[in-house]
């Protein structure tokens, strides 16, 4: 299982209403991108605090998730700050300011997205999209795919271990062959499994609609108001800094 998915299920804010978490993440994202870079700095600090202190997401995992995108950001910053022309390499005029703004906005955006990803399981998000009007066929399919992802992932991991145990990964050439064999084996397995699942669902009276009782906490007006106020106050503070 992916550590991100695991954290999304086990963090302290797992059962907070989806609408509240989504409003917080997307609202903060919008002001970080639309307003002054100073706002982005405030958003980044606020969302980091909310994620690590509020939802108690593991800081190690959070840092790990931040690292990869920061690598891309570093490359982008260098190209913005430096100028290459006939005289050689030099600093771009205004490049530092631009690069600083980019860094602030990117990190702020990242903290917003990570907050949502690490506090809310993908299945909740898909379910939420369903309530927003995404057709139920697509929602059901996405949820089944989400479920199968883990089952097939486990199968693939087991096959991989079995191959390694029989020296299937000894050379680069064998590694490629072995990976191909896994891919070729997963397809029929997935189809078999889908057939069995169809039987199991039909045995429980399935007639084409995947209706389940989702006991989720509903967003409260006061919760949404508090979050909106927090977003507004950060936006305003940014103007006076």
């Amino acid at each position, binding site marked *: *299982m992916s550590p991100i998915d695991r954290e999304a299920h086990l963090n302290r804010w797992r059962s907070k209403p989806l609408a509240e978490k989504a409003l917080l993440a997307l609202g903060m994202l919008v002001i970080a991108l639309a307003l002054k870079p100073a706002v982005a700095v405030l958003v980044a600090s606020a969302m980091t605090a909310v994620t690590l202190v509020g939802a108690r997401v593991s800081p190690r995992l959070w840092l790990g998730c931040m690292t990869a995108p920061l690598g891309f950001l570093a490359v982008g910053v260098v190209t913005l700050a430096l100028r290459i022309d006939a005289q050689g390499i030099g600093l771009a005029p205004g490049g530092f300011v631009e690069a600083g703004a980019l860094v602030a906005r990117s990190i702020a955006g990242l903290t917003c997205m990570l907050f949502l990803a690490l506090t809310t399981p993908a299945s909740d998000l898909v379910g939420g999209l369903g309530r927003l009007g995404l057709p139920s066929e697509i929602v059901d399919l996405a949820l089944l795919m989400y479920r199968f992802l883990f089952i097939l992932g486990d199968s693939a991991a087991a096959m991989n271990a079995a191959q390694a145990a029989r020296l299937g990964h000894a050379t680069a050439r064998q590694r490629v062959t072995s990976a191909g064999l896994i891919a070729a084996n997963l397809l029929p397995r997935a189809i078999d499994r889908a057939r069995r699942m169809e*039987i199991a669902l039909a*045995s429980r009276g399935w007639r084409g609609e995947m209706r389940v*009782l989702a006991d989720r906490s509903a967003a409260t007006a006061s919760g949404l108001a508090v979050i909106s106020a927090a977003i507004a106050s950060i936006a305003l503070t940014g103007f006076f800094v």
Partner: protein
Amino acid sequence: MTPLMEVSGLTYSYPGGVAALDGLDLRIERGRKLAVLGPNGAGKTTLLLHLNGSLRPASGQIRLDGEMMKYDRQALNDWRRRVGLVLQDADDQLFAASVAEDVSFGPLNLGLSEDEARQRVKEALAALNISHLAGRSTHMLSFGQKKRAAIAGAIAMRPEILMLDEPTAGLDQHGSALLTEELQRLCDAGTTLIFTTHEVDFAWSFADEAALFCNGRVIAQGQATELLADTRALAEARLAPPVLARLTGVLKTRGLLAQNAAPPRTVDDMLALIVEWSPAYVRS
């Protein structure tokens, strides 16, 4: 009295022509625990899939409460409401994101209101001692927990007959003992149980009745403690007698147990019998 379910002359071939069922007969009495015993690959799962209409036989009949089962949509819905199925691999059955959601699937398909469905979910989870897992994600469960969740999903529909494919396969001793207790409680509450297994010892300790399945037929059906002591019938189905059945047999022929002593179903029963029947000088 008409049996709860009566199967006669069932035949079925897999696509490709291999015969899986070849004139199979089976009787299921109300409130009993029936073990369908047979070696791996005998077609036990195929049989269960016939008993709730998932597979349609080439010929033969299935009667539920004396009434012949049909295969139109309405009849199948009714059939599956009355006969629940738990597959061997719980991952084939759990599809929803959380345990409670998954268990609510069947009750909602029955057309129950959300409140009723919620009540059913609560009861089913409590019956299998997994109330604490209600909100847990289905892919974050242990093997035994998945199995319980799958069974809860079936019993939340309150079937008259619950069919389980290899219920103890892959469970450790403790998990298997707990599951047995939970299944016994279901049975005490009136649910008829049918389960497939190749573990003769489990069948001996738990089943009321046994059916030996071999070459697409039930070659013998009867009281578990009688049939599973029948070495010849067992050998025909490529099964060995349960340890306690063999021990009982030997002790009786040696005169160490009364001929009319009830066969011990558990090791504890056996120990009690041995103590009771051993000569006084051994006991002291």
